[in-house]
């Protein structure tokens, strides 16, 4: 009955769709009013060979080579991949493994560039006439420019920008939600580059032939809403609307945003395109504009450098490869001491243990927060009192406390039955847990273990098939041999009489 009422009120336009659960967070947007500035050039840039979801790249340059800004220095391997470009002109000084921001603390091969400061850059041919060009051509351009989703997921952008008759895109959603506390990059981008974003949207719409475009912004950014509206009017394009959504975390998560805007769910195991929706982040759309209209590869991004422990917070345009320590020092934090540095937002970001890691395509924030402020550090895990707050806030409607029990007890089959892999790791459950249980941590552990189990199962299955195939082959060969032999014998037998005769004649 309540569901019916809800649907009715939505049909009448009395209520936005919304999504299940979620939490209201203290926004802490310290840098919302600060214009984007350029970060100065670091003496060394460290470019990891994998800054996207997918296969790692292969270096195309050698130590001692001179590279220009925007020059492709690593080739994408496989389909789900994005090439890496030099983010400044200079000399390649070494290619070796270096730490990156990753929970495992592991390293990746990186190309080290010493910038010469000349900023000589290399661009592709600008295509202001994109509207006359073939979508496939534009798609190849976006692929070559190394574009990935800059909201944090870093999924290669070109893959989503496809015209497919079976899965036609009806709605393009611009994700201007930015629901993580502190982060203001998308906010500033919308304020300062609204025209470029709208132009980028027009390109994307042309590519996928979408019917409508929805610019989704939360109501905590009224100025951005205003700017986007103006830009849409100025660009004079039809069927583009700005949707103002009530502020709620994690609305910026793709599946939740789609639910909030369209009222529809992305079926499990499917992609948004299967229900005719394409989501793109603000920064990605601007990068699409630059790639197409100016031929510029992705070599920098805007990062919110913030946190109460940082002397001079701000929104910085940072070249990829700039070490985190350099960025923090530039904003007045020379020695972190007791300050914790978070890569990303406070809800989904990762605590950095090594500040030599570089800023990469996934970096949307660098936060310096006092240990005291991190309540998760002060209290240890206590027994679950089954209050159910975690299920209330879970945007995918899991039962986190039971799921965590299964993960902790290594009952992975059960955890899978409780839909472990649908968890988006938004952190709402851990955020509200009165027993401060690190639920998301257990889910990551469970996912990792399950992936391991699946890998070894797949390996065992493969080995089994291989050995079975070998046995079959041996059996086949044996039979073939036997058949040949009997055939030979048969021919011998059938030929026999003559032979015998002959022989008989001979012998007789």
């Amino acid at each position, binding site marked *: 009955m309540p569901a019916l009422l809800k649907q009715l009120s939505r049909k009448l336009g009395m209520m936005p769709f919304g999504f299940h659960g979620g*939490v209201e*967070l*203290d926004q802490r947007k310290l840098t919302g009013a600060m214009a984007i500035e350029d970060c100065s050039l670091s003496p060394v840039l460290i470019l990891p060979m994998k800054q996207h979801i997918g296969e790692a790249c292969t270096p195309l340059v050698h130590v001692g080579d001179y590279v220009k800004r925007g020059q492709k220095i690593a080739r994408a391997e496989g389909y789900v991949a994005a090439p890496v470009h030099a983010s400044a002109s200079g000399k390649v000084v070494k290619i070796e493994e270096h730490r990156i921001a990753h929970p495992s603390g592991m390293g990746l091969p990186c190309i080290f560039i010493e910038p010469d400061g000349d900023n000589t850059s290399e661009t592709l041919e600008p295509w202001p006439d994109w509207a006359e060009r073939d979508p496939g051509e534009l798609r190849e351009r976006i692929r070559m420019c190394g574009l990935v989703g800059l909201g944090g997921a870093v999924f290669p952008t070109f893959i989503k920008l496809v015209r497919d008759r079976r899965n036609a895109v009806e709605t393009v959603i611009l994700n201007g939600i930015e629901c993580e*506390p502190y982060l203001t990059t998308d906010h500033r981008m919308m304020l300062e580059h609204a025209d470029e974003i709208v132009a980028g949207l027009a390109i994307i719409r042309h590519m996928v032939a979408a019917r409508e475009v929805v610019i989704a912004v939360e109501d905590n950014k009224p100025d951005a809403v205003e700017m986007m509206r103006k830009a849409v009017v100025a660009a004079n394009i039809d069927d583009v609307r700005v949707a103002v959504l009530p502020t709620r975390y994690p609305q910026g998560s793709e*599946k939740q945003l789609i*639910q909030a805007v369209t009222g*529809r*769910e*992305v*079926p*499990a*195991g*499917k992609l948004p395109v299967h*229900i005719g929706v394409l989501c793109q982040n603000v920064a990605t759309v601007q990068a699409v504009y630059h790639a197409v209209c100016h031929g510029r590869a992705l070599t920098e991004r805007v990062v919110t450098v913030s946190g109460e422990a940082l002397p001079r917070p701000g929104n910085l345009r940072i070249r990829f490869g700039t070490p985190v320590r350099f960025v923090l020092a530039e904003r007045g934090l020379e020695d972190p001491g007791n300050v*914790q540095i*978070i890569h*990303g937002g*406070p*809800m*989904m*970001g*990762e*605590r950095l243990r090594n500040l030599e890691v570089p800023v990469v395509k996934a970096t949307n924030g660098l936060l310096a*927060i006092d240990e005291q*402020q*991190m*309540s*998760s*550090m002060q209290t240890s895990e*206590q*027994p*679950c*009192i*089954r*209050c*159910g*707050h975690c*299920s*209330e806030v879970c945007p*995918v*409607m*899991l*039962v986190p406390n*039971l799921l965590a029990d299964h993960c902790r007890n290594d009952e992975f089959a059960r955890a899978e039955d*409780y*839909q472990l892999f*649908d968890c988006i*790791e938004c*952190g709402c459950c*851990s*955020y*509200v*847990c*009165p*027993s*401060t249980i*690190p639920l*998301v*941590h257990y889910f*990551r552990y469970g996912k990792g273990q399950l992936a391991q189990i699946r890998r070894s199962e797949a390996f065992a299955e493969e080995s089994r098939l291989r050995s079975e195939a070998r046995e079959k082959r041996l059996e086949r060969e044996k039979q073939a041999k036997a058949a040949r032999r009997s055939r030979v014998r048969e021919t011998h037998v059938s030929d026999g009489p003559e032979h015998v005769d002959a022989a008989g004649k001979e012998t007789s």
Partner: protein
Amino acid sequence: MPMISSPHIHNGDSIRLTMLTVVLALLPATAAAVYLFGWLAFLSISTAVFSCVLTEALCLHWMGRSTHAALDGSAALTGLLLALTLPASLPWWMVVLGSVFAIVLGKQVYGGLGYNLFNPALAARVILLISFPLNMTTWLVPMSAAAVPLDLYDFQLCLAFFLHGPEVLGQTLDAVTMASPLGHVKTEWTRGVGVQEALASYHYSYLNAFLGSEAGSMGETSALALLIGGIYLLARHTITWHIPFSYLATVLLLAAVFNALDPSHFAPPMFHLLAGGLILCAFFMATDPVSSPVTPAGQLVFGVGCGVLTWCIRSFGGYPEGAMFAVVLMNCAVPLIDHYCRPRVYGHGADE
């Protein structure tokens, strides 16, 4: 060991805060108990709270755990809840025994906080009722000031009564005790008297039952005080509406339907609502997070189950009051309910 894993911020909620909120919500009922049953209520409640915390600390100490957890508020809450379900006339040693039952048999044998199957306070009350049926159904007349032989507002007398039992009074308690409305109705029914006549002979008044001046357990008589606390808990979001609503609605619905069919056998819905421990159970006992289902759908099932059992025990059972048995019985079904009442996960079986 600091967690490296996200999220790195927390809303500041804690077990202690949750427990303190519930204790705060019980303050109106506690105040009503002290107002209605004088110093006896004060003595019983403080004894129960103190015994529970002490037992918890001893248990934790013996198990080699940090005794710090005894002060997380959960033991104190158990003590308070237990005391509120007891008759005011109980001697001290029964109160202490009940508290020990609650903590040891109701909670620690299962592994401590978060692992108990039953609501500890209710489990202890069930054990007490079965062990001492007479004492557990002797109800003092509320607000009997300057009464012979027991003046509830005379501290010396109450203390002596609490410590040494009715012997100190020199005469039997009969003059200051009465049957509870539920007990009266049940007794009359077994004698062949219908519900309507029974209520008339009891001089039952809905207003008195709402305010709390009918006989009953210390904290159960005043529906008003309990409702204030329950609404506070709902407003603070410590509990959700699912269990109280489904529980009370089920009892009301069953009572209304059967009362309409046979008013001489089945009591009217408002009587059911205000009598006995229903409101206390619906807002404070059945909603105990540890021993109730986690999911909203499960909570609705749980509430309906509690309601059906409460009404059935009251209407057909040997005991006049069924609320606590109902909750304890439904506690057993919680793991099963939790397993079958999982929410539909995003993207699974959607309208596509």
